[in-house]
């Protein structure tokens, strides 16, 4: 059974059809790359999958349930988490709070318990503090727990965003240009991190990236879009040699 099944997905902004006829099947623990020229519609696809935009047509089926029309926070609770092309952290909050917020829907104590500090508050807060620290530890960021997020270097911010997405306990993780603004060395480390979380958390990953070293290096399958339409799909080797992809995207 597929984890995610997307059929005929499309959206138009005004007259512009940004995405059309998009389809993809993602199995549990897949690692798939989504590439294409600037303005091809990749980020828009992410926005459709996470409920930020309402598609004009198509179905998004997550483990047998059509999630089209669900609010972003509901979709997160059902198991799709994401990062953003331009980092969106809770800048003024501490690193650990950034992660704790993502545990929100996994916690149960009600508002009154929070306000009046009933035992359930103490119990859950303690648990979550522990869990958040463990997660940060996996990213070697535990020592930064009390740092304000905006003061982190860029690379750490990207990592924190991934950690935060993982805290929501997703089945599918969407990464939008995680290596943008990183140098090759940092990109290499990132590749390791992605590998690691995929196995550690046993999740599927769909990622957008312009860095071909990364995409070709770790993705098992690649989907190429241009003008909102899929122009190719296949293994890295197939994609590398596909003349359409070379013409539109890779060059040379």
């Amino acid at each position: 059974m597929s984890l995610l099944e997307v059929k005929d997905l499309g959206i138009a902004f005004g007259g512009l059809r940004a995405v059309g006829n998009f389809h993809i099947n993602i199995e549990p623990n897949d690692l798939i790359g989504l590439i294409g020229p600037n303005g091809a519609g990749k980020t828009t696809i992410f926005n459709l999958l996470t409920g930020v935009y309402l598609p004009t047509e198509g179905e998004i089926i997550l483990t047998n349930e059509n999630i089209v029309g669900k609010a972003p926070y509901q979709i997160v609770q059902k198991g799709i988490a994401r990062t953003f092309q331009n980092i969106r952290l809770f800048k003024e909050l501490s690193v650990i709070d950034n992660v704790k917020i993502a545990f929100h829907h996994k916690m149960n104590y009600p508002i009154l318990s929070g306000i009046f500090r009933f035992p359930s508050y103490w119990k859950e807060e303690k648990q979550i503090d522990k869990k958040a620290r463990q997660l940060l530890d996996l990213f070697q960021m535990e020592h930064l727990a009390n740092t304000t997020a905006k003061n982190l270097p860029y690379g750490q911010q990207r990592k924190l965003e991934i950690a935060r997405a993982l805290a929501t306990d997703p089945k599918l993780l969407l990464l939008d240009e995680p290596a943008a603004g990183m140098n090759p060395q940092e990109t290499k480390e990132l590749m390791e991190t992605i590998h690691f979380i995929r196995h550690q958390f046993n999740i599927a990953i769909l990622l957008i990236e312009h860095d071909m070293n990364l995409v070709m290096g770790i993705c098992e399958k690649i989907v190429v879009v241009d003008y909102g339409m899929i122009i190719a799909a296949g293994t890295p080797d197939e994609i590398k040699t596909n003349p359409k992809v070379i013409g539109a995207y890779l060059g040379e």
Partner: protein
Amino acid sequence: MLTINNINVNYGSIRAIKDVSFQVHQGEIVTLIGANGAGKTTILHTISGLLRAQSGEIIFKDQTVSSTEPHQLLKMGMAHVPEGRRVFSQMSVLENLELGAYTRKNKKEIEENISKVFERFPRLKERKKQLAGTLSGGEQQMLAMGRALMSKPKLLLLDEPSMGLAPILVKEIFNIIQEINQTGTTILLVEQNAHMALSIAHRAYVLETGKIVMEGKAESLLGNEQVKKAYLG
């Protein structure tokens, strides 16, 4: 052309740039490379006057410009393509270019210049009426570059011009940088894509947590083991 002497730059109480000195000579392409947060952007901002150094000196065309306003620096011939493109998204492509020539008076020359930019970036010509905010990332990058060229700079500061671009566009952008340099513009280039940057630059400086740790000819740095390990992957 540009000399930086012992500048220190703070964000609040945090010192981001420590005692940095370097030069850019007439006609060169000089590149600054370094990890995330090393302070490359901070240095460019300080040079173009958007940030002020706590101490140290910046000399541009034999004049101390450490406290000169950015708009005056532009008149002196320095243009800066900032990180993240920063095009005026509610204005058309043409208006963006016109603003690039804000300080110039000669209408005819400006016209000529615009057609030159269009020649260099034919994509922009197709979209000259479009609002800049609706351009794709790559087109915005071209616009940012074209806009900076409109002031006919002697020195061009470029901050990560290839970020977020498709591979096909990355190559194009570096070609254009070389072309601009050949027509007489001196270039200070900041890049994450150290490989590309070093392959077009004459000289390079390596920045680590706010300090310059290495400098030299671009080719020699390209072959340097340390650099290879840290920045070329």
